[in-house]
């Protein structure tokens, strides 16, 4: 197993209140320095609530947003998005909203042909053959090729989106909430398809979602994002069963689960910190039942082996999710 994707101190900040001249009024750190490694053939799940920076991270990975700082390495080579036709062959993206990621004025064939033509310079016959192969692999009928996007259901459109990503023959796919717009019965279809493809083609996935159960079900490892920073990374089966970061625990306790009684897992300040005016130290401390003085002073760093958490007071490995956190902390 080799590292195919390596993020080193990847950071993104947006200036706020731009002026015509001079400096902007403020800066929002959408993504704090993030270090992650993804191994060949692995699925890394990234989970977090809205506004935690997961989409920003994803867009940086595929070169749609330039990072403010840090580096991205693919197969050991730094990512260079100067030439879109080279770049597209390395890494591809599957969008959250399957319909709006397809140009409403183009037939599916035109959509599918673009990467084949631009990235691989195939001639017409080769393209037709390749499209047929890809469509077969994602269980789509070839008669769909001459239709327009609005004629498809969400699940079908998402398969088309996956097919397009496959056409580029990149080995890394960034899946940005690929099933959150789909109904559960269809969601399972798509997730299973993704799993099959990965096995067949030896792909590496970065799977981004807000749905803990889905992430857990598809991922080898999971990274939990909070306020633009990775607060915990660990094996999928461990991370929610035995979270080390209080935030991960909060997430796990919040997910509605059949058979668990309804409780408000949290009664304190529930809102995310103000991104324009971030708190000192740990961003979670205002919501954290274990917060202490040091939490306000120092930003905790990821620590530990394998299962790592960025917390000054990590939870005991043995404490299970069933341990309810007192709401008044």
């Amino acid at each position: 197993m080799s590292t195919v994707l390596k993020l080193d101190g990847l950071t993104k900040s947006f200036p706020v209140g731009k002026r015509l001249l001079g400096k902007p009024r403020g800066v929002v750190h959408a993504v704090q320095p993030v270090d992650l490694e993804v191994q060949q053939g692995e699925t890394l799940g990234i989970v977090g609530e809205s506004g935690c920076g997961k989409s920003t991270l994803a867009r940086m990975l595929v070169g749609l947003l330039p990072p403010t700082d840090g580096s991205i390495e693919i197969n050991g080579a730094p990512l260079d998005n100067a030439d879109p036709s080279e770049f597209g062959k390395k890494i591809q993206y599957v969008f959250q909203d399957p319909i709006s990621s397809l140009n409403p004025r183009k037939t599916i064939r035109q959509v599918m042909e673009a990467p084949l033509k631009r990235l691989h310079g195939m001639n017409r016959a080769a393209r037709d053959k390749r499209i047929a192969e890809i469509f077969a692999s994602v269980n789509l009928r070839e008669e769909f090729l001459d239709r327009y996007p609005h004629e498809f259901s969400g699940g079908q459109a998402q398969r088309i989106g996956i097919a397009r990503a496959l056409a580029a023959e990149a080995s890394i796919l960034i899946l940005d909430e690929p099933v959150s717009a789909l109904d559960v019965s269809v969601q399972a279809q798509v997730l299973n398809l993704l799993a099959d493809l990965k096995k067949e083609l030896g792909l590496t996935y970065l799977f981004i979602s807000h749905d803990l159960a889905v992430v857990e079900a598809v991922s080898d490892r999971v990274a939990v994002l909070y306020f633009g920073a990775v607060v915990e990374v660990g094996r999928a089966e461990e991370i929610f069963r035995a979270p080390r970061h209080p935030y991960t625990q909060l997430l796990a306790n919040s997910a509605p689960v059949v058979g668990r009684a309804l409780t408000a897992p949290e009664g304190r300040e529930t809102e995310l910190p103000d991104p324009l005016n971030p708190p000192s130290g740990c961003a979670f401390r205002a919501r954290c039942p274990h917060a202490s003085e040091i939490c306000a002073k120092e930003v905790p760093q990821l620590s530990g082996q394998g299962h790592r958490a960025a917390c000054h007071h990590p939870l005991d490995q043995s404490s299970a999710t069933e341990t309810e956190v007192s709401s008044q902390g």
Partner: protein
Amino acid sequence: MQFLSLLLRNRLAAAGGVVLSLVLLLALVTPLLPLANPDVTDTANRFLMPGEQGHWLGTDHLGRDLLARLLHGTRLSLAVGFAAAFFAAFFGAAIGIIAGYFGGRTDNLIMRGVDMLMAFPYILLALAIVAALGPGLTNALIAVAAVNVPFFARNIRGVTVGLAHKEFVDAARLAGLGHTRIILTEILPNVIPVIVIAMSTTIGWMILETAGLSFLGLGSQPPQADLGSMLGEARGALITNPHTSVVPGAMILVIVMSINLLGDGVRDALDPRLRSGALTRPMPATRVERKGTIPAEGEGGAVLNLRQLQTQFHVKNRIYKAVGGVDLKVAPGECLGVIGESGSGKSVTALSVMGLVASPPGVITGGAVYFQGQDLVGAPYERLRALRGDKVAYIFQDPLATLHPLYKVGDQLVEAIRVHHPVSRSEARARAVALLKQVRIPNAESRIDSYPHEMSGGMRQRVGIAMALANDPEVIIADEPTTALDVTVQAQILSLLDDLRRERGLAIIFITHDFGVVAQLCDRVAVMYAGRIVETGPTAAVLRAPAHPYTSRLIACVPELGGGRRRLEAIPGLPPAVDRLEPGCAFAPRCLKASAACREGDIALEGPGARAVRCIHPEAELEEGVA
């Protein structure tokens, strides 16, 4: 083709199109028609009335045949109007697309320039341009086109900015397309309809503007005349010989009006929202067209009792049976969960109760809704209104969209109270603060003056709940109230609702697609599929031993936390379209147990006690569940 048929279906647009084609045809064949020479003067026979001496429309101040001049003038006016619109659209679109696509400094620079040009009342700019270039039709054309460029540029830029951030543009970039190619193949095809709409709705205006410049004597030069200069020349004889003014004036009116009619038609046909009939205004209450007998309420005890409720959407020739005969009831203090995938009809059922299904296209076509024993379907609007928000309150899904963005949340609460109770503003406000406190909004006194956008999603939904509680309702219908929220927030909202209903003895109908939520909150659950309830019963019993294959397979699809990495169950196929429902069980095509009998007749929802299932081959024998 679809575009043409849509266009033709619009009768007014078609009429406009016919008139315009006639005018265009006339203009095209004008040189071939046996008309008098439009420029030959005959000063002795000036100002002849229509019909005199073979001049169908009479003659002008130099004795020239008005009909000939009118047709030749029409040719000119049309040519100039179309040309001006084309050039304005072309350059405006080019500028707009470049500014909108590249954004940043390019955009800033271009748009400042456009702002500058738009800061002039356009006529001044046009006049100045004509003055600088000299009078003449070509120069008038240039001026009219030039002053309209900024309008197009701004319009197209706005559209392009929206498109440039669309995901399919990102996708194209990832597919290896460069900027030029993206603009040409991704942006342009999507902008062209907008350009066409803008053009079709401005050509008439352009013709008016050119006519205006000609009217001022800055356009066409004699003896040639467009309609504007004809009107300008005729103005001198307005009082003595009004027909010379009326003829070109009426022609301008006819042309511009037919162009506008057609333009509206083009816009309607091209605008996807209009195409889907989405721009129709929902009426205050859903239309009711009940056929057949009205089912009786049956046994009492329920505060709200839906009997055989049917709601359909009538879109053009299609009938979507969104709700196909639903029976539901909820007793005081009870929480009923209604679960289903999108398109299953769960929200429509909820909205039908108080006649809130958008209509058109929604129609309640059958069944009854008994509230405290009285049927609300077809009740007078005023009765419905009096109950809405008072006895029966709603909580909706996306609190950002469902709160009025321009009113402070306090005002919205106060309104909800005062609509039903004649209390003073200050009293209502005090009550609003109390409500906000009840839903555990911190600093309620200051939060009351916030606007919805100043609050987080969770806070907004609390306001939504407070609003539903404002008049101490008997029933709350919550339509996916937590779907748009993050899990941590969802958990809080659910626990709040649970507390409230226990404190107040509220009846709640809770619509959701999430089994976890139903399991935690609801006493009973009803599972919907394709507009009908396929299974119902006490929540615990149904979840433990689902009877309908759909229920059981759906539960299996949902990944549960803590299971680690695994393969998920999936249901093959797609939910059926409710406008083409086959007889029999709607789930049959996806069901592993389906037999021929499943596809035959109607299958009843039956079962012992509180449990019932609509299936010939249930997964398990039903046992009477405990509510």
